[in-house]
């Protein structure tokens, strides 16, 4: 079986071979069957979703077409506000009335585009830490092998797309939280340029590193979602105002996906994986295959090394800990035991760093970005692995080891768009992934590169056995 993409479903809805209500029934049946095992949802919006699907069918029948997301079931990570539904942040600490009466702008935009929001998906508490069996929340498991982890923190969205519980969804990314679960779950996930998607109504982790991004099977699906999600909102002070981010003047993300990469110069980065404790033996051959695919699509492929990679990753860690502790300190001093053990012991690292450490990390971030800019200036994009291995086993998960096996945080420090996409499988059948990093606001290019690769491969359409056989 191959996965149903948003683009395919949108065609089916218009051709009359699918209805939004039927599509919702299909994904709801899948959730009934698999959610107890996979821990995708914190809350399901059964009645609201059914009403939205019926409305979508009525509107489409009446000739009202809100675009490619009209009638498409999507999941939302439970640190984003959804009107009338408590956002838990998968935490006992979070105030239940937070943003209760309104949608986050990004959720409102999806609803206005006709999307059917099916529910709120699992995360790590406040988007940091590890799954915590001591707290009363589902533990997300990877559809490719439920003995392995989904990655995080957009865990439920990653697993839910992979297993067919919805066709796409929202994640957030401060050190890789869209791209890591996308990588481990074998789907595609985009961290857009910092500020392109407004973060009002999204609980912060590290406010100068936080991004909201789409997760779906394909780069095309991510482009369709981003076209709705992007654009200024005054409630996020970091939301971009440039014409390149605004509806009407920004690039046509989906229209840019032609499959032809002629004229693009793309750097392949092979040094970053050497920073890991261990890499899967299939990873670098997968990167070679990606390089061949890029060349076959017409790109000029060259070898590069990212300068200051370590500094960018270090800055992400220090800034994240400092900003997270700034947000949580007041609650943490009162309610230490209510936080999960992995979340509280990570965030409290921010108490161990000094003000000078934080300021230095912000300064170093700028210096390192300038050095990277020298290399990126001669290129359109850089491609490097997303993670060193396939999904790690649940048994024995630990934060310290995990942090050496992921290559994502450096690109949160840069604020550059980064698209993670499937690139093959380990010998054990777990997905591997590469990420495409581009210039600021060059999402169209980054997505076009991902799409060109996906036109030549089927990794992104592969479904885990559990999705077809339960």
């Amino acid at each position, binding site marked *: 079986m191959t996965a149903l993409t948003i683009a395919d479903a949108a065609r089916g809805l218009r051709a009359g071979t699918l209805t939004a209500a039927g599509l919702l029934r299909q994904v709801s049946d899948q959730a009934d069957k698999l959610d107890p095992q996979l821990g995708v949802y914190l809350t399901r919006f059964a009645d609201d979703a059914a009403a939205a699907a019926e409305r979508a069918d009525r509107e489409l029948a009446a000739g009202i077409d809100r675009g490619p997301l009209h009638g498409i079931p999507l999941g939302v990570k439970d640190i984003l506000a959804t009107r009338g539904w408590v956002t838990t942040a998968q935490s006992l600490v979070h105030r239940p009335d937070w943003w209760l009466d309104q949608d986050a702008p990004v959720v409102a935009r999806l609803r206005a585009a006709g999307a059917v929001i099916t529910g709120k998906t699992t995360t790590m508490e406040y988007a940091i830490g590890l799954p915590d069996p001591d707290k009363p929340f589902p533990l997300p498991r990877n559809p490719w092998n439920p003995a392995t982890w989904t990655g995080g923190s957009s865990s439920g969205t990653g697993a839910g797309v992979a297993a067919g519980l919805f066709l796409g969804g929202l994640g957030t990314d401060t050190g890789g939280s869209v791209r890591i679960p996308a990588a481990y779950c074998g789907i595609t996930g985009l961290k857009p340029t910092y500020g392109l998607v407004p973060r009002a109504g999204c609980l912060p982790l590290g406010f100068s590193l936080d991004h909201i991004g789409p997760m779906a099977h394909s780069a095309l699906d991510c482009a369709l979602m981003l076209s709705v999600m992007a654009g200024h909102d005054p409630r996020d002070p970091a939301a971009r105002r440039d014409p390149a981010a605004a509806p009407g003047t920004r690039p046509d993300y989906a229209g840019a996906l032609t499959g032809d990469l002629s004229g693009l110069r793309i750097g392949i980065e092979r040094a970053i994986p050497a920073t890991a404790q261990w890499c899967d033996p299939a990873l670098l051959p997968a990167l070679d295959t990606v390089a061949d695919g890029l060349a076959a699509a017409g790109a000029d492929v060259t070898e590069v090394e990212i300068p200051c990679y370590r500094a960018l990753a270090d800055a992400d*860690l220090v800034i994240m800990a400092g900003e997270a502790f700034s947000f949580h300190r007041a609650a943490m001093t009162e309610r230490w035991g209510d936080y999960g053990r992995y979340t*509280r012991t990570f965030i*409290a690292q921010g108490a*161990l760093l*000094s003000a000078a450490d934080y300021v*230095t990390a912000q*300064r*170093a971030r700028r210096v390192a970005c300038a050095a990277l800019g020298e290399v990126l200036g001669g290129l359109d994009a850089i491609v490097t692995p997303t993670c060193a291995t396939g999904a790690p086993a649940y048994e024995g998960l630990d*934060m310290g080891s995990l942090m*050496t096996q992921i290559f994502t945080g450096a690109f949160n420090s840069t604020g550059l768009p980064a698209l993670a996409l499937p690139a093959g499988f380990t010998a054990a059948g777990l997905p591997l992934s590469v990420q495409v990093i581009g210039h600021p606001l060059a999402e169209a290019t980054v997505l076009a590169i991902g799409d060109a690769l996906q036109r030549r491969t089927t990794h992104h359409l592969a479904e885990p056995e559990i999705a077809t056989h339960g």
Partner: protein
Amino acid sequence: MADVKAAPSPGTIEAVRALLAGAGLNPPEAEIEIMAAAYPGFRAAADRLYPLVYDDDPAPVFDPAALFGAGPDA
């Protein structure tokens, strides 16, 4: 990051306990040891950044006009 399974030294544990207490946090001893095991990794990440900024401008950008709006003479 340091391997969180590595045993932290007594000095590191004491330093971490004091820094946490200074921030109003008094977690159980077992969790202080977990944080002390991870702390050298965070400390090293922060320390590695200082040489990089030695010759850089001293502060992040601050723009009062962006916060307050430009004055009448602008």
